[in-house]
C-alpha cells in the first residue's frame, strides 16, 4: 500500500504542483459525491424496507435506482483512490528498490495504467454510445441507462489525467531523484500501514502517537 505525499515547501510553487493540487480538489469533490451516493443507498434501503413492511408500499423501481446509482460509488472515486495509492497492489519487490530504479519501475507501472485506461475510455465510450442510440432502459421503470454508462468513460478520463500526472511525477524523479516528491504516492512500509489502520479505528490523535519498535524495524529493513 502506498500513500500520497502532499506537495509542500519549495517546488510546490510550480505549475505542475499547482495543477496537481487543483485536480486533487476535483477528485476529492467527486469522491464526496460517491460518499453521498452510499449514504443515499443506505437511506433508500431503510425507507424501502420500512415502507414495504409497514405500509405495504414498496418504492417503485427501487432496484433500478440502486443499480444505476452504483456506477457513482463504483467509479467516481477511482482517480481519488489512485492518487492515494489505495488500489490493491503488491509492493514486496518495489520496496526493495530505491531512488532511480524504484522510480523507473513506478513509471513503468503507471505507463501500463495509462495505456489500459486509454483503451478503456475508447471502448466504454462506444458502449455508452450504443446504449444512447438504441435508447436502452431499465427493466422495472424504464429509466434510461445511458447516463450511467456515460459516467464510466468520464471517470476513466479523470483517472487518465491522474495517471498522466503520476507518470510526469515519476519521470521528474528519474531525472532528478532528489527533487521534491510531487503528485506521486510513496511506498509505505508495514508500520505506515499499521498507522493508517490505527487512524481509521482510533482517530488521528492516536495515529500520531503510535510508535513502533525501531530496533525490530531496522532488522527487517536488511
Amino acid at each position: 500500500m502506498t500513500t500520497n505525499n502532499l506537495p509542500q515547501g519549495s517546488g510546490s510553487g510550480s505549475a505542475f504542483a499547482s495543477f496537481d493540487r487543483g485536480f486533487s480538489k476535483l477528485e476529492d469533490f467527486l469522491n464526496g459525491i460517491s460518499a453521498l451516493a452510499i449514504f443515499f443507498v443506505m437511506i433508500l434501503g431503510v425507507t424501502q424496507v420500512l415502507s414495504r413492511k409497514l405500509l405495504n408500499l414498496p418504492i417503485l423501481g427501487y432496484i433500478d435506482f440502486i443499480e444505476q446509482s452504483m456506477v457513482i460509488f463504483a467509479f467516481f472515486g477511482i482517480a481519488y483512490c489512485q492518487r492515494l495509492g489505495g488500489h490493491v497492489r503488491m509492493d514486496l519487490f518495489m520496496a526493495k528498490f530505491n531512488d532511480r530504479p524504484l522510480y523507473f519501475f513506478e513509471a513503468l507501472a503507471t505507463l501500463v495504467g495509462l495505456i489500459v485506461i486509454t483503451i478503456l475510455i475508447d471502448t466504454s465510450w462506444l458502449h455508452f454510445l450504443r446504449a444512447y442510440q438504441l435508447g436502452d432502459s431499465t427493466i422495472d421503470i424504464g429509466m434510461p441507462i445511458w447516463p450511467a454508462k456515460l459516467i464510466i468513460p468520464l471517470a476513466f478520463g479523470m483517472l487518465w489525467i491522474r495517471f498522466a500526472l503520476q507518470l510526469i511525477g515519476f519521470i521528474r524523479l528519474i531525472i532528478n531523484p532528489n527533487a521534491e516528491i510531487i503528485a506521486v504516492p510513496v511506498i509505505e512500509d508495514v508500520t505506515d500501514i499499521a498507522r493508517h489502520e490505527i487512524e481509521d479505528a482510533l482517530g488521528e490523535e492516536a495515529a500520531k502517537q503510535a510508535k513502533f519498535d525501531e530496533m525490530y524495524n531496522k532488522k527487517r529493513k536488511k
Partner: protein
Amino acid sequence: MEMDPLLAGVIGMGALIVMVFLGVRVYIAATLVGMLGIVSIIGWDAGTGIVGTIPHSKSTLYSLSVLPMFILIGYLAFHAGITTAAFDAAKKWVGWVPGGLAVATVFSAAGFAAVSGASTATAAVFSRVAIPEMLNNGYDRRLAAGVVAAGGTLASLIPPSAILVIYAIIVEESVGALLLAGFIPGIVSALIYALIIMGRATVNPKLGPPVRGFTFNDRMKSLPGTFPIIAVIGIIFSAIYGGWATPTEAGALGAFVVLIFAFFHGMRTKELKDALFETAKLTVMIFSIIWGVLVFVRFLGFSGLPEAFAEWILGLPLPPTAIIILILCGYAILGMFMDAIGMLLLTLPVVFPAVIGLGFDPIWFGIIVVKMVEICLITPPIGLNCYVVNGVRPDIPLSDVFRGIGPFFIADVITVGLFIAFPWLITWLPQTLLN
C-alpha cells in the same frame, strides 16, 4: 493473430503474475492481460468490444450493492461505543474463569466483529480498551498483546463480512449462504482461543488471574450497551433466513441503527464525513478490482485454462485432502505478501474449479480460505495486526506481541484442521437455514 487458447491462457497467467510482482495495480494488470488475451483469441474489435462492456455490466449488479453497506457499518462502529460496552459485558459474564479478562477480550472482539469487518481495526480498538485493564490486573504482557492481535482476526468470518461477499460474487455462490456459513466457524475459532487461554491460565495462574465479584444485577446491567451488536446480527440473520429483506437492505438497516447509536454516543458530523469518505475509497477499490479481475476471468473462460488446471489437479496421485492442504499452504505463503482481497481475486478463478472438481463444497472452501488469509495477519514476516498492537501500545515490544501470538497460531491450525475433518461445522448452518 489468433492463438491457441490454452497457450494464451498459460502465457496470460504468467504475464499477470510478472506484472503484479512488478507493482502494477491488480485491477490494471488483470484488465490488460484479460484484454490482450481475449484479443489474441477472438481478434481486436470483438475483443475490445467485450472488454468495454464489463466495467459497467459487472459493477451495476444489485448483489454488489451490499458491499458499501457492510463497509459503512464497520467504519461507523468505531463511533458507537460498542467496544467498551462489549468488553465490559464480557468481563462481567466470563471474567471469573481462569484468564478471564483475556477470554472476555476474545468474546467481545467476536461481538465487535459482528459490526466491523476489519481485523486490523478491531485489533487497534481492543489494544486501547482491553490491554490496559489486563495489565492493571497483573496479566502477562505477551498474553494481553497476543489475544488482542488474534482476536481481531475473528472479524472476517463473523457476518457482516465484506470479504465473504466478494468471494461469493467471484465464484457465483449465494451471498446469504456465505454470510451464514461464517458464523459457526467464527464462534468455533473464538471458543478454541478461549479454551487455550483457560488451559494456560489454569496451569500457570500468574498468566491471567480471574476477575470476580460481579453480581447478577451487574451482569444484566452490562447488556443494554451491546444492543447495536445484537441488532446488527439480528437484522442480517433474520433478513437472510426469513427473506424479508435483501442483504443490501439488511446492510442499510444495520448501518442506520449503528449510525443512530453513534450519534447518541457523540459522533460529530466530521467523523461521519470521514467514515463516508473512507467507505467510498474502499468501495471504489473493491469495485475496480472486481471488474478488472472479471475481464481476466472472461479471458480465462475463452482459454479453457481453469478446466485444464482442474484436470491436472484431479490427475495428481494424491488424495483430495492432501491436495487441499497443499493449496491452503500455498495461500498461507501468498498471504504473507499480499492483501487478502487481491490474493483471493487473482487465484480463485483458476483454483476454485479445481477445488470443486475434487468434490469440496464451495461454501466450505470460501470459509477455509478466508480463515487462512486471516492467519496471515498475525504471522511473520508481516503480521499487520501485531504491528497495530505495537503501534497503539509502544510499551509492549513487537517481539513480545509476536511471542504472545504463538498459542493463538496453534489454536488456528487446530481450528482449520477441525474444519477439514468436520466440514459440517461450516456447511450445516447455511444448509439448514436456507433449504
